[in-house]
């Protein structure tokens, strides 16, 4: 678990999650123009975010969640499905399949998504990452037995994920209202649309059978869930309002991914700072 903030901070976890992470997406969750996480360097008008939320009791700060009732319902459904199906399956998978094989499965799936990541790298104008993705794809496909071994990762070409939701984020598209998708879990309008974008960017969408694509997605979901069993248990135990916690984590995680972990955000609109300058006012209100 992560040094700072316990489990939800598990760096590995956070990196592993991707928008398609069907089941694992329970981990994450939240879209909002958040309370404390909001200060856009480009538009300073948000400095008084706090003042605004303080004044209006109707608006709960930081929850960009107009259809909360519906979302909570789907969230509860997903949670039940997770308890009954996904978590047991993931646990069985982890118990039955040895770690090296599980890693190969993950490598293979990651490799098969390389074209999508490459396309998004390029759409974001990140040539360096595009080169990295391209090199990984070539090396792992050829030397890594079709992607089963992450040879490139060992050679210093580290894996990273990108998706079309992130790409739109870097273009300045704001996240829109928070959404909980059935089975797929936490999302928002932008990232939901991003899922469609990713499917369209994936060459396999056009050549592979539907069953194959579905099998890949399910396997991916089981793999991700199996890597987050304790983390999620903890998260659930630790929170008072699990739904709200997940919503916030999803939002923060996505902002961080869009910034690519840089905490000095670019000036693209919609990007936020992790520690806003003027978010202390509330703690001074006494």
């Amino acid at each position: 678990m992560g040094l700072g903030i316990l489990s939800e901070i598990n760096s590995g976890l956070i990196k592993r999650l991707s928008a398609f992470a069907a089941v694992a997406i329970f981990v994450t969750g939240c879209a909002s123009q958040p309370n404390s996480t909001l200060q856009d360097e480009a538009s300073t008008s948000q400095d008084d975010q706090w003042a605004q939320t303080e004044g209006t009791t109707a608006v709960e700060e930081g929850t960009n969640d107009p259809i909360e009732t519906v979302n909570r319902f789907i969230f509860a459904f997903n949670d039940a499905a997770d308890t009954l199906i996904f978590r047991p399956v993931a646990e069985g998978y982890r118990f039955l399949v040895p770690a090296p094989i599980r890693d190969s499965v993950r490598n293979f799936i990651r490799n098969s998504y390389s074209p999508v990541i490459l396309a998004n790298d390029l759409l974001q104008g990140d040539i360096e990452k595009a080169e990295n993705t391209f090199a990984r794809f070539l090396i792992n496909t050829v030397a890594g037995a079709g992607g089963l071994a992450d040879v490139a990762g060992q050679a210093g070409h580290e894996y990273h994920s990108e998706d079309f939701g992130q790409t739109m984020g870097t273009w300045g598209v704001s996240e829109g209202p928070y959404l909980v998708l059935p089975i797929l879990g936490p999302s928002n309008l932008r990232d939901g649309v991003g899922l469609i974008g990713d499917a369209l960017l994936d060459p396999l969408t056009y050549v592979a059978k539907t069953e194959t694509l579905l099998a890949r997605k399910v396997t991916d979901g089981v793999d991700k869930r199996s890597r987050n069993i304790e983390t999620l248990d903890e998260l659930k135990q630790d929170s008072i309002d699990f739904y709200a916690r997940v919503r916030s984590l999803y939002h923060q995680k996505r902002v961080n991914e869009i910034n690519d972990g840089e905490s000095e955000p670019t000036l693209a609109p919609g990007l936020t700072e992790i520690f806003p300058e003027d978010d202390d006012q509330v703690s001074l209100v006494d």
Partner: protein
Amino acid sequence: MKLISRLISNTTALLVGAALSLAITTTARADDDAGLFLKSLQEEAVSQLSDESISSEEREQQFRSLLTENFDISGIAKFVVGKYWRKAEDGPRSEFMTIFEDIMVQRFLPTFSKYAGSDFKITKVVKKKSFYIVFSKVKTEGGEPAQILWRIQAKENSGFVITDIAAEGISLRSTYKSDYTSALKSLGGDLSALNGKLRKKIKSGDFAPKENG
């Protein structure tokens, strides 16, 4: 003549360079202090947490004082309650403070112990208007390196205090805040009701991280 003018320009360049580098080092020094504070805190924590000779109660006590001395626990506690702080009475407020401190101890003692021996590096310090952001990288054995950000504020007289931590972009304060304000909203803003729930969770050890399988 040429030689002299060249000498002069060289000297000037040198002086300007020296002045500049001096200016840079002096501004860097203020920022470094926040980094040094964190570095020494980390060293202190490591030596405390890796001390095998003390009992677990003693260790908890030590960790608690380390936490309360170096973290702005009360500030964070107020922050995570958000607007409901204002509406709460003094009794529930101070009760929440105590409870929140317990939560932090239960939550972070195992985590800090686990990370005590790992590679900890401060990568940069950024000065903001009223605080510093100290960037650090923590690498555990066999794990991927994680980026941890520390929001550090100068105390009024001297010294520093940590007001937030963010790992991989997830902020402690923001995360707890969304949870607790949302819970409070459904409890009709009743802080004592939240206190009751939290107390139960502390008792059953819900905040302690589990060992990863």
